């Protein structure tokens, strides 16, 4: 539904030319919830704005539906007001001089095909009902709460029934509790409408909980693209692993290559050997980084099989409410583990940590 090919965007800052987007390719299927995730300045918003037509890239092609809306080779730029899109801005961009009804009616009034008063009213009311703002139609827009303004912006973006919905960090201006509720509501809503959605955020939790596909961006490029589960469990490089969730990194060297059946192999680290999932083509002697999530590390009990264990000293225990963050010194390295809050660990205690082999992923080191 949205296709982006080899997108490049430069812009002139005060001192230098910035290469903000460096060859982005996206292929977003009909009805998919697709998220661009990355730190600020990674080019995610620029990419979204290029799809909207608010920025003109220097190179690449963009398709919305079957329409080629941008092409550098064909020198074609379809202006934003002729693209079949709806968009929600980070600031919501609600027009303060109009009431709720007029804000939502605006896109309908600007359509080429003129609607009858009845049709217009019906469509606006339907859109407002969709975001639970029915009954507020006559309220002046500035007199809405933050959450209501966010939903109003969504209704305005959807009222024309565009083929693509673009969302630019729409939750970042809400307070924490409302943001959490809205995450699920928003996903549920766009899934119910069935609209193809391109979502931009720097919040990994939003990306993981809402998306069908996440593309992690770094310095103008896509570092990794996949389902939230893939991104979280099998990060392909250190940046992705570090950006998504808390992660432990253990440096090591491949000792024995992966076996045919399991793709697990032996890695030698400063504190002992660990069995890990190796990437394709890793040979003995290769430098690697083992990535393991805090919640995947277990404290070994009496009945745990005696393999993939490392001994360490508990350095700090932090109560987090629903978990205990336990920092363990293994050799010179501090590992973070996430334990059940009832776990009986004390600072200073010597414990064995179990590393499930299928949870340890070896990434190519430098």
């Amino acid at each position: 539904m949205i296709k982006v090919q080899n997108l490049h965007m430069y812009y002139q800052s005060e001192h230098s030319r910035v290469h903000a987007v460096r060859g982005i390719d996206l292929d977003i299927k009909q009805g998919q919830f697709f998220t661009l995730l990355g730190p600020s300045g990674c080019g995610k918003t620029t990419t979204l704005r290029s799809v909207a037509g608010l920025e003109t890239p220097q190179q690449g092609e963009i398709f919305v539906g079957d329409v080629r809306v941008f092409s550098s080779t064909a020198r074609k730029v379809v202006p934003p007001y002729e693209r079949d899109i709806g968009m929600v801005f980070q600031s919501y961009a609600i027009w303060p001089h109009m009431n709720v009804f007029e804000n939502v009616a605006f896109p309908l009034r600007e359509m080429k095909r003129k609607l009858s008063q009845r049709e217009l009213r019906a469509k606006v009311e339907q859109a407002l009902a969709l975001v639970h703002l029915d009954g507020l139609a006559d309220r002046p827009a500035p007199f809405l709460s933050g959450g209501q303004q966010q939903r109003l912006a969504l209704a305005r973006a959807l009222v024309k029934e565009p083929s693509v919905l673009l969302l630019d960090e729409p939750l970042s201006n809400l307070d924490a509790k409302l943001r959490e509720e809205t995450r699920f509501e928003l996903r549920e809503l766009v899934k119910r409408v069935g609209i193809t959605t391109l979502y931009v955020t720097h919040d990994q939790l939003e990306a993981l909980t809402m998306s069908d596909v996440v593309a992690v961006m770094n310095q103008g490029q896509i570092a990794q693209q996949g389902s939230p589960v893939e991104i979280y469990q099998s990060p392909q490089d250190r940046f992705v692993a570090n950006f998504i969730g808390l992660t432990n990194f253990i440096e090591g060297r491949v000792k024995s290559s992966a076996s045919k059946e399991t793709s697990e192999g032996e890695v030698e680290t400063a504190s002992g050997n660990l069995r890990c999932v190796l990437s394709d083509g890793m040979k003995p002697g290769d430098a690697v980084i083992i990535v393991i999530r805090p919640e995947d590390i277990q404290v070994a009990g009496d009945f745990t099989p005696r393999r993939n264990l490392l001994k360490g000293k508990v350095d700090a225990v932090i109560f987090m409410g629903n978990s205990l963050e336990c920092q363990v010194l293994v050799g010179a390295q501090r590992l973070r583990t996430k334990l059940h809050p009832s776990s009986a660990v004390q600072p200073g205690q010597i414990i064995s940590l179990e590393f499930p082999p299928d949870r340890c992923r070896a990434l190519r080191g430098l």
Partner: protein
Amino acid sequence: MIALVTTFFYTRLISRVERFTIITGKGYRPKQIDLGRWRYPAFCLILLYLFLAILLPFFVLLYVSFLSYLQAPSVAAFAAFTLKNYRFLAQYGEVATALKNTLLMVLVTATTTVFLSFLVSLVVVRSKFWGRKLLDQLAFLPHAIPGIVMGIAFFWVFLKVDFLPVYGTIWAMSIGFTAGFLSYGTRSMNAAILQVHKDLEEAAYVSGARPWRTLWRVFMPLMMPTFVGVWIWVVLHAVRIAELPLMLYEGPQNQVLSILIWNMWDEGYVPAVAAIGTLLMLSLLLLTLAVRYIGFRRQLAAPPVA
């Protein structure tokens, strides 16, 4: 010179556009500050100021306008109140001409000033035109020039420029005033345009509105209070400033009210001048209220949040 230096720093200051954006799509809501126990002293202070600055001069003017000749207030003076000054104005031919001239001159001046300052500010704030800073400085420059000097300058220009036969007419005043008020107009417009966040227009684009529709339905309405504000300001100033018209007018058929007042005062018609002044103040007050009511009706209609 001082004005030039301050102009320079001013343009330096506002060059970082984003920081001054105030009207965004969210949280645009007037705020009330609770003064607590300072409420009454503050109220009294404002009343005192209003009294000294506005009410007292007005009542003096009103009082004098009912007198036959200038005298201190006394029971006898009040007893001798008369409407003859007002009757005199109605008969005095020059008043009608001056009134018509003033009306025309002021309306044209105010409208042109609003239009030109908007265009200049649009270029200065929004475009990437290389000369936009220079343009801004030029528009601000008249601020540094005293009205009388400006009047002399325009006097010479209109005297020498043959292809523009405006010398001595109310159009000469209109041009002079517009140039002068452009500095104020562009300041207000710059500030107002800076306050309209680009998101609001971009939201209109992605909602399917073409640029001129966006201008018409989003940008202009948000600018309306500023247009109205600048317009009233120019009307009020153009009506009452006498320096520039004094330098530029020629002959009784080109008189405006400010000159008429000046001339009549000069000739000793003090109570009649007071009568003109009273009428002028009342009509300007009504104009201000009317335009403010139209311009701000929407904002006033908005109920507070529960």
